[in-house]
Each structure stands twice: as structure tokens, then as C-alpha cells.
């Protein structure tokens, strides 16, 4: 059986520094996989490589059986891979609704003439874009609807921005969603809520999810499988329970016990 995404011997070097060295990874349709690891382990670089923001030095990335190496970021998004950013990067001066509408760019096609002539195809597409945007925002309950539609994104609270970023990724209609620390900076209540939402993203929307996360409760609650990176190398893989008791992982996070060093 072929995987939804498969990464083979991925190596990325930044001027002599190996951000990733020989990463093998795969994710199957409908899985939720967490990527964890200490700071600087290469997790975000891994996402950047998949979405085409960084070119790998060696290795190959297959999505749905085809190599996506060398594609531009917008092409990758077009194939069905969406992502969020670790440090929330919305379009702050666009409204909440526009943020979502613009994310459907690669699923729509109208250009200058349609807008100028107000063709029925253009109007229909605009209507659909707006409806889909509202549908996506409704996923987050009452937090991003109603009067929020027309508010610029910069007035949103931190948690709402995180939600909006997830919503924006949803609006690109992906098959695979890459979430980069989706709950970073959220309080426990908000974290619990978003954790539940991530589960629903799979069950209701059918997304396959790869998630970078530091919050171990979130990792434990939603992931089918956990991959641990350290210094650009996967050091462990498996269910949360397997990984969390793996001595290599404990070492990577907490350091070597004192008696071993001596």
C-alpha cells in the first residue's frame, strides 16, 4: 500500500549545518502523526521542505506517489498540502473573512475579465468562495463568525489568530495538513478545545494531519503515531506510550543521567 506522503533520506544542509540528515518518514491517509523533538531538532525545516519553502540537499518527497521536489509553494498547496506557521502569520490587515477567502485561491480560477464583466461564472464563484469561507469559520463555533467576519485579523486575540490560521489552512481544501505548534501559547482551556478540534479535523473533514507540538498532553491525546527528531535525525517512532518511555527520547529531552556521563 502506498503512503499518502513518503519522505526518503531527506537531507537539508544550511552552509555546513545539517538541519535534517537522512530523514525517512511516511504518513498514511487519515493518520494523525506528531513530530516532536527539542528546539533546533529540525522540525520546522522539515515542514518548510515539504511545502517548498526550502530546497532539500538530498532525498525525495513523494506525495500521493509523485515527487513534489522542486515545486513552488503554491503548487504544493495546489496539490493538497496546507500548513500553519509556528509564529502566527495571518494577513493582519485583511478581514477575517478575506483571510479565509484568499486561501481558496488555488481552488478557484476567475481573473481580470470575470471581475470586470461581472460574468455569472464570476459571481457564482465569489458566492461559493464566501459560503465555503463561512462554513470553515463555523467549525470554530461562535468565535469567528458574525461581527468577526469584517474585523481585520489584527484585532483578534492570540487564540483566535491561531484558530484563524488553522481555518485558513482548511480553506485551501488540503488532503494533508501540517500544523506547526498549533496550541503554542494557549491557556489550558483553549488547548483542550483545540485538541478536540484537531481530532474533529480528521473525523469530520477527512484531513490527514502531521503536527509539530511541544505540549505532550496534546500529542498523547490526538496522535496515532509519534516521531521524535533530534539533531535532524529521527531517534524514535511509534505510539505515544512507546516513545515516551524510550530512553533515547528521554535523553534527548532531559540530557544523559549524571552517572552515565561520569
Amino acid at each position: 500500500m502506498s503512503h499518502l506522503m513518503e519522505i526518503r533520506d531527506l537531507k537539508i544542509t544550511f552552509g555546513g549545518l545539517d538541519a535534517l540528515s537522512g530523514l525517512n518518514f511516511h504518513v498514511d491517509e487519515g493518520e494523525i502523526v506528531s513530530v516532536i523533538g527539542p528546539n533546533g531538532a529540525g522540525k520546522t525545516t522539515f515542514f518548510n521542505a515539504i511545502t517548498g519553502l526550502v530546497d532539500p540537499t538530498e532525498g525525495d518527497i513523494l506525495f500521493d506517489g509523485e515527487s513534489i521536489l522542486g515545486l513552488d509553494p503554491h503548487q504544493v498547496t495546489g496539490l493538497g498540502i496546507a500548513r500553519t506557521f509556528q509564529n502566527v502569520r495571518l494577513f493582519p490587515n485583511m478581514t477575517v473573512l478575506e483571510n479565509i477567502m484568499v486561501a481558496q485561491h488555488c481552488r478557484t480560477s476567475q481573473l481580470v475579465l470575470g471581475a470586470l464583466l461581472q460574468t455569472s461564472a464570476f459571481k457564482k464563484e465569489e458566492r461559493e468562495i464566501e459560503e465555503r469561507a463561512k462554513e470553515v469559520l463555523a467549525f470554530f463555533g461562535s468565535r469567528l463568525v458574525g461581527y468577526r467576519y469584517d474585523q481585520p485579523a489584527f484585532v483578534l486575540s492570540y487564540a483566535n489568530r491561531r484558530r484563524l490560521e488553522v481555518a485558513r489552512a482548511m480553506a485551501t481544501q488540503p488532503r494533508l495538513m501540517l500544523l506547526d505548534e498549533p496550541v503554542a501559547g494557549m491557556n489550558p482551556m483553549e488547548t483542550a478545545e483545540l485538541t478536540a478540534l484537531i481530532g474533529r479535523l480528521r473525523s469530520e473533514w477527512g484531513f490527514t494531519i502531521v503536527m509539530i507540538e511541544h505540549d505532550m498532553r496534546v500529542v498523547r491525546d490526538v496522535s496515532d503515531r509519534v516521531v521524535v527528531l533530534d539533531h535532524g535525525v529521527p531517534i524514535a517512532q511509534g505510539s505515544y506510550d512507546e516513545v515516551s518511555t524510550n530512553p533515547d527520547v528521554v535523553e534527548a529531552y532531559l540530557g544523559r543521567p549524571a552517572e552515565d556521563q561520569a
Partner: protein
Amino acid sequence: MSATMTSSSAPSSRSGYRAPVADQDWRNVGKWGGLCTLALVLVSLIGMPVGLDRRILIHPVLSLGYLSLLWIPLVLGFVVSRHVELEGVESPEPGGRDLLAGALTGLLGGFGMAVFIVALDTFNLRDPLVNWSPQLLELLNYGRGLGFGVVAWIAACSVLGLLGSSIHVIPAGVRRVVSYGAFGLLGIAVLEGAIADLSEGFGLQSLTDSIYANRGGVTVVWSIVLVVIIGVVSMLTRGRFKAAKANYGELQGPERKRASMILFLLVALLTIILPLFLGTIMNELLANVGLFLLLALGLNIVVGLAGILDLGYVAFFAVGGYTTAVLTSPDSPFFAPEMHFAITLVIVVVFAGLVGLIIGAPVIRMRGDYLAIVTLGFGEIIRLLFMSDWLKPYFGGAQGITNVPGVDLGFVTIKGTDPRSVFYLVLVFCALAIYISWRLQASRLGRAWMAIREDEKVAEAMGINTVNAKLLAFVVGAVLASFSGAILVAKVGSVFPNSFMILVSIIILVVVIVGGMGNIAGVLVGSFVLIGVLGGPRQPGLLHEFQSFKLLIYGALLVFMMLQRPEGLVPSARRSQELHQEEFLQDVWLKGEEHEGEEHEEELHAAEASGAEGHEGSGA
């Protein structure tokens, strides 16, 4: 009436105490007084008073030359006594202290001016300072000797400083009437040419003849009458406009649509009918405003929407102009006598689009400052190509192409000798450009442009092909500019490479910035204020006396706008929110108390987070 009561009594109820008159912030007064001196001397030495003395505003009291000096102590008097009001901090009631501060600032300026006059009389520094002239001395003395000049400046500046600061002290109702009267009169005096022209068209020449003196300027008697009329009218209409605007804002759905429609039709009708009553000069001016409006609308798409800082925008203006000239002038090897204007225009559009693509393709991958510099270079390259000996057989080198016949539409020929026809042609294209901007703004492409402006990398990651989208913005902008170029050439009847200097790009950019970036109404106002009143790079405006100081004023205006009102005269709601985030968020925060507690907390978070982001943004 009750509104008057509350608003005028509001200052006194705001705080309980009056600061002692002698309790001055001396440093502040010294600073602004020194600034006043500097400004007065600078303006004198630039040559404004002498250069503008011929333009009389109020006959025979006030000329534009004197006004160029006298506004300084007035405004600085106003500024020095201004208080920053902070919520929750009791600030003293405006009173004697502020008046003294204003008067002292004026006095310092007056002293400075007095010393300057004496120096002017004693030394001869004409060699480095061109305007250090006897005429300046004569003007500053009011032609009555040194002693009079010294005393007069000290007195006048002090009084003006006092008047400036008294703006804070007098009740709001009075302030309103006085300011309306003063600005109204100033407007009538400045717009003399336009008003005279218009009233002539309506057959009211006798009225304007009595209002304006022979040598120009409103007569003293009429000045008083006009101020009184404007004052009374402003008192009578008080609050009406606000109420009307509020009413309009409250309209919903179809009613709103109808109101907008009526408003639009009124404006459209006015723009179509008005030129019929205007003379040649005014129509010419309007046509120029239209030409620059067309350019500014195009640049607004490139800079305001897509965020591509294109400093070589004039290139497309030039391409439009040259293509038209090459196709329609009998002097050119490509002269095609039977070609209809519409076909010419199609070719112009295709060429401009192509040049947009050719320039855009290498440039568009750059960002920020690099892009600005490179576009600047391309703008010059295009001009130099048109000027080059290499292409002289086609474009005529520095002599350009002459003999362009104008636009033959079959039933009417549009050319420069009939500026009204040019205006109507420009009007059609401006309407088209406004329509294009308006429709694109609210489309898939418009949103993509905005996203690119906000964060190019993320836009790319969200599935937008940024290179294509930016190229499209470039091409749309290029096409609009080429329209303007085509009409310009048809109007002038010739085309020269020197009409397309970098300065044109800069001025269009200033129009967009001062008017309000990313906003169609802003661009409209910007073109009228800058091109209409001050004048374009070569086109005189209403204040054609400013011709030699135009760039100075453009620059000063740009600096002032950047400091005080970066969102422009008529900002887009979005942009003004962005630039005044903190104030906006404070409002949001205050309003947040109306929502439930959880919401309230969110807004607080938002305020903090965006505050931090705002700083980041301004640093980048």
C-alpha cells in the same frame, strides 16, 4: 442649541483648575519660538514672499507672499499651546497661560524676523543667498523704512501667535464659525481663477467683478461680507451634514443602494455638465487633473493593492504616449492614416502590457527596496531609449515626435486646442479606471494582491502564484498609465522624452500617498488637491504662482503627511486602522466591557499582541 451649550461648556467642566499665567514651560516656548524664527527666515530666503507677492488674496491688504510668512506664527502659536489630553489625567483648562505661550512664541519669531531685517539692511549676502535682495527688504518693511518693519514684525507676530493660541481658549461654537469664515474666505481667494471662470460660464460675471478687484484678490468690503455670510451659513447648517451622513450610514439594503445610486448620478451629472460652463483654462486644468488621476489610479493598484513599490511607473506613461505618437503622426515611419483611434488604443494597450511584462518579469521576483531601485532604473532606461540616437529614426531622439493630429472619433476631433473635448475623453477613461479598480479590489485577484502586500511568503504558501499575481498587477497598472500617455500625446500634439522624467513617477506616488493609499476616493482627492491646486510636473495648477516652489511644497506636504496623517487625506478604512492600531484597539478594549467576560479577556489579549506586532511592523 443645546448641543452648542454642552460642547462649549464641556471644556470648563472637564477640569476644575486654571494654571497660573506665569507657569510656563519655557523650554517649549523657546523651542517653538526658535522654530518660528527659523521658518520665517527660511521662507523669506527661499524667495516665497517676493515670488508670490503678485498674487493678491485680499486687495489691497494681503498677498500670497505675505501669507506665506504670516501663517507661521499663527500655526506655531496654535501648536505651542496645544495640550495632550490623557484619559484620567486632569489637565488644566486652557486659559491665560496658553495665550501667553502663544504670544511669546510669536514674539520670539517676530524678534528673529526683526534681526533678520536689520541684517538684510546691513550686510549684503546676495552672493550665496540669491534671494537676499533689496526687494525682500522692501517687502518685509512694507515699504516704510527699517524702523517700521522691525516694530511691525514684532507686533504682528506676537498678535498672530496670540490669535493662534486663542483658538484653544474661545468656545467651540465661536471657533467653528471663525474657522469656517477664515478658511472659506481663503478658499474663495485662492480659487479666484476657477470661480471667475465658472461664474462667467453662468453669466454672473458682474458678481465676480465686484467681488474680486481688478488686479486680483477679494476686495476688503466683500471679504467682510463673505466671512459674515459663510459664518452665518455655517451656524445655520451646523450638524446638518453630520446628521445627513449618519442617516446615510444607517440606511440598509435596497434603500442604501438607491441612495448611493442617486449620489453617484448627481456627481456624474455634475462632472459631465460643469465643464460646459468652464472656460479654456479651467477645462485644461481639469483635463490635466484627469490625466494624473488616471496615472494615480493605475499606480494605486500596483502600490496600494499589491504593495509593489514601483518608482519607474512613468515608463508606461511614456510607452502609451510614444506608441500613440508613432502610430498617428505623419512624421513617423509607422504612420497609418486610416487607423481608427480604437484600434490605435488596442495596440497601445497591447504594447504597454508587453512592456509591463518585459520589465516586470525580472523585477517582480525582488522585494522591497531592491524592487524600488530597480524599477527606478527601468523607468530611466525607457526614457533614455526613447531619447537615444539608436532609435532616433522611430522615436525622433530628443526632438521627439511632433504633428500628432489628435483623436478623430468621426463626429468630433479631440485635441489640445479644445481642452473640453480632452476632458471628456479623460473622463471616460477615468471612469473606466475607477470601475476597474473598484471591481478588481473585490475579486479573487484583488484579495490575492492584498495578501501579497501583507505577507508575500505566506501568500505563496496559501496557494497564490505570487509571480503571476504581481505581474498581473504590473500589467493592469501599465495599461492604465498607457491610456493616460495616449491621451496626453493626443492633447499636446507631440511627445518628447523629457516629459517622462523620474519626477513624474515621484509626483504620482505623492498623489497616491497624500490622497490615501489603497483608496479610490483618496486618489481622487489627492489628484485634485495636488495636481489641481499645486500643479503637475509641468502643468500649472490653480496656484500657478507656486510653480517654482512646487517641489518644495510637495516635499513638505509629504513629510507632514507622513508624520501627522500617514493614512492620507481620505484613507481607506483598513489602512487608517492599521496605522492607528493602538487608538483603535483602545476603543475596542473600552467597548469590550459590553461583551461578556470571556470576550473581554480576548480583546485584552488582542490589544497586547497587536501592540507588539505593530512595533514589529513599523520596524520592518
